């Protein structure tokens, strides 16, 4: 039962990763690419972490996985913001 | 006596930390640390002479698990030379750097360089050798940049990149050795290595890396600009000791560790490259317009002579003739170390007192700076290989070995190289003793001139006349 649930979560996570990567390659400009990358990948990582957490034997491991997700969430949100802001500035300057 | 080995590494390293923390009294601290290190080197030399080869297990862990320091006749001699040259250069440097900020930057790096040289000559472990090589390379580069000029920074950067490439090749060879034989200990390896793909490839990579660092033709391109644009005391140590450290490792690997792996063909290749270095280096030295560049190109040539010994040593069967030839090699290396260090210090004096080192404009230097000119002449005696210099004994053994093994080519190369050396030295002396009347009074500055004089006298007189113990010491192998 747990195995099935965690497999579904991991597969779903991988799907979002795939979508994010395709978006990065196919979308027309920087903003939409950023959108695809951060939104889809953050969700993908979250699902992946949840799937792995179900698998783990110890609560501590699950907490660590949660921590990883939160750290990546904060970092990717901030970096997406920085990249977008810098791009906007360059545009207005031009 | 084994504590002397620890002292040789720990004393200059402690000195480096102390000079960093106490920049105001850095000179005193550094000279003190240098003196103590020299005493440790002398103690070690006596120890090896009396008790034979010594070793010290770091941390008390058995060889293999821990790192073992080793000293035999060869390393004790090179350590002694290192200490004497570095001490003399230190005394000179205390007068050379006038600004307090310059001194504060110079001394810690200088003592780190000294530490790395001692650590390298003592190391008995392949990976530890890699670390000492990197310490040596980085400290040498950092010191070379103290020249301050753009040319110095450019040369130093190229020196650094070449050195890094050399270290990486060396480390790749070391990794292969560990993969194949499961040990890094230099004394264990000769018992386990056997000719085959692993040993050949590893030796080829390590040797290539070291040849880059020792600047054997055609890998010498980085040396002349780097050595010629560094501050004089740094140039002295770079030319006399730093390139020789890499050469020492080649010698150690080829004659000790991989003795049953090397082939005469490979040794002939090294000899051939050495021959090219002798001819090309001497020729470029003859063309040089600046004294420092002349000295740097002469280093390329003099290192070439050392490699001429390889085909001889491989062709000679073990026995007294081979020992004589090996002694000649070491004698040549020692003489060049003292002579070239002295030469660079003397050039430094000229550069600071006359404001330039252009050979064409040296007229009257002999009247202005008699002691320094005499030092240059003494260095010249040693670089040409005239009696009674140590180089004469060395080259004599080189010629004897060439005749013995019927390898006439090396004989021709040695003769041509010596003639070219005579030409470039007399070109300098011809200008220095030129008949231009020089208006100024002769100058003598003890702290600046004595180090060069002592070093060159060591090369031209002491080693040649009292060099017999060198051969005795070399019989003490690991």
């Amino acid at each position, binding site marked *: 039962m747990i195995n099935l649930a965690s497999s579904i979560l991991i597969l779903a996570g991988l799907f979002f990763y795939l979508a994010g990567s395709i978006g990065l390659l196919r979308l027309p400009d920087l903003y939409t690419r950023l959108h695809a990358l951060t939104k889809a990948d953050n969700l993908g990582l979250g699902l992946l972490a949840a799937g792995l957490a179900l698998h783990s034997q110890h609560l501590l491991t699950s907490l660590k996985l949660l921590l990883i997700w939160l750290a990546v969430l904060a970092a990717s949100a901030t970096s997406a913001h920085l990249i977008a802001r810098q791009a906007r500035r360059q545009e207005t300057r031009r | 006596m084994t504590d002397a080995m620890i002292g040789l590494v720990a004393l200059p390293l402690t000195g480096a930390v102390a000079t960093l923390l106490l920049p105001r009294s850095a000179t005193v601290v550094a000279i003190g640390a240098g003196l103590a290190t020299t005493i440790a080197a002398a103690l070690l030399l006596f120890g090896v002479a009396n008790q034979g080869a010594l070793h010290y297990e770091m941390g008390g862990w058995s060889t293999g698990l821990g790192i073992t320091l080793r000293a035999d006749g060869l390393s004790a001699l090179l350590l002694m030379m290192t200490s004497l040259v570095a001490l003399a250069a230190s005394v000179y440097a205390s007068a050379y750097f006038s600004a307090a900020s310059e001194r504060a930057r110079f001394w810690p*790096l200088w003592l780190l360089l000294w530490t790395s040289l001692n650590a390298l000559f003592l190391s008995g472990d392949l990976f530890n050798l890699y*670390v000492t090589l990197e310490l040596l390379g980085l400290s040498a580069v950092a010191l070379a940049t103290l020249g301050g000029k753009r040319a110095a920074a450019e040369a130093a950067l190229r020196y650094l990149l070449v050195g890094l490439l050399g270290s990486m090749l060396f480390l790749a060879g070391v990794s292969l050795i560990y993969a194949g034989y499961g040990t890094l200990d230099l004394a264990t390896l000769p018992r386990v290595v056997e000719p085959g793909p692993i040993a050949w490839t590893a030796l080829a990579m390590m040797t290539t890396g070291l040849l880059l660092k020792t600047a054997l033709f055609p890998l010498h391109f980085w040396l002349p600009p780097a050595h010629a644009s560094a501050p004089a005391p740094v140039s002295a140590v770079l030319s006399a000791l730093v390139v020789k450290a890499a050469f020492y490792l080649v010698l150690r690997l080829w004659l000790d560790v991989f003795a049953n792996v090397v082939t005469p063909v490979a040794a002939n290749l090294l000899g051939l490259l050495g021959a090219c270095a002798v001819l090309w280096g001497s020729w470029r030295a003859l063309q040089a317009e600046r004294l420092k560049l002349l000295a740097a190109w002469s280093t390329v040539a003099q290192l070439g002579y050392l490699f001429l010994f390889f085909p001889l040593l491989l062709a000679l069967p073990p026995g007294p003739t081979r020992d004589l030839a090996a002694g000649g090699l070491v004698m040549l290396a020692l003489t060049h170390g003292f002579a070239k260090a002295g030469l660079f210090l003397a050039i430094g004096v000229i550069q600071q007192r006359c404001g330039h080192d252009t050979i064409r404009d040296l007229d009257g230097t002999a009247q202005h700076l008699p002691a320094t000119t005499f030092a240059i002449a003494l260095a010249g005696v040693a670089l040409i290989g005239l009696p009674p210099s140590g180089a004469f004994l060395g080259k004599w053994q080189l010629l004897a070995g060439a005749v013995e093994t019927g390898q006439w080519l090396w004989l021709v190369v040695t003769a041509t190289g010596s003639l070219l050396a005579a030409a470039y030295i007399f070109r300098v002396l011809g200008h220095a003793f030129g008949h231009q009347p020089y208006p100024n009074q002769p100058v003598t500055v003890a702290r600046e001139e004595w180090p060069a004089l002592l070093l060159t006298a060591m090369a031209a007189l002491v080693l040649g006349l009292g060099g017999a113990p060198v051969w005795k010491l070399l019989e003490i192998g690991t």
Partner: protein
Amino acid sequence: MNTTNLLVFDGLLLFSIVGLAWASLATTDERRSVILFMAFGLVLAVAWGRLLAPDVALAEAAIGAGLSGALLLAAVRKQSPGSSHTHANPDRNYSESGAKVVLQWLVTLLCAALAGTLAWALLHALSSAPHDTLPRAISDNLVASGVSNPVTAVLLNFRAYDTLLELAVLLTAVLGIFSLGQTTPGYQPAGPVFDGLVRWLVPVLILTAGYLLWVGAHAPGGAFQAGATLAAAGVVLRLTGRSRIGLPDGFVLRIIMAAGVGVFLLVGLTLLLLGRPFLGYPPAWAGALILLIETAAMLSIAATLLLAFVGGQPQSTAVNAAANRQREENSRC
């Protein structure tokens, strides 16, 4: 996981490693090259994990990819993106000439020959049974080493002398950087989002550094990983425009720089005076002495890496503010 799956994973991992290395060296755009190199480092860290080398994986991610990348990126920043091709590299003008093409092919052939020879020798080395004398000696002596993580035992006890010289290498590098005296200009103050992230990230990083240092005795971690993490805290502080980044001034800074080598030497020489071998810790004290040395080493490493990133002594705030105004044009955040 079964072997086939693992093989597929290995294949993908190695493919991306070689691909990233190739891509990072094939481009002539310096910024792209550096970013690809950082990605290369991160994928390498995964490979180290796969080969059961977690200590190395941590160090690679923190130092190899992280701080080396930051250093390299800071070096790129000096040139505007367009100019890096033209004026900085005059020797690139002959790129189309025939001699250059011949040279490129010669070097490529040489390197291919090197790869082949190396591979040939390596296969020979791997074909015999692995040499287990040394690993066994390490595990046999682990109890006496004072720590239970074998990598830390090798680094700080069995081969402590290597580590002492390695700290000397770090000290040399930072002294060399100091003597060049070229401080990179600071960054302008960051906006609220980045600043907000840094405000809680820095304490977490400092806490992580302490944890890594402590845990190194029995699990992956240690002074190097901890030092790099601490340095990372300083790097992000600098990126938000703070100039002091936690580094002290003058004498105290010099003490921190020298602490790694100094404490190491002090311990080694004290033991020598007490009649033990140089760096030969008594087993009962080994754990404490290693922790002492590692703490000093961590501070030195962090300070050194930070100073390397700054490029010299940190500038005073006034100078920094002026530099910031000048750099308004090229600001990144």
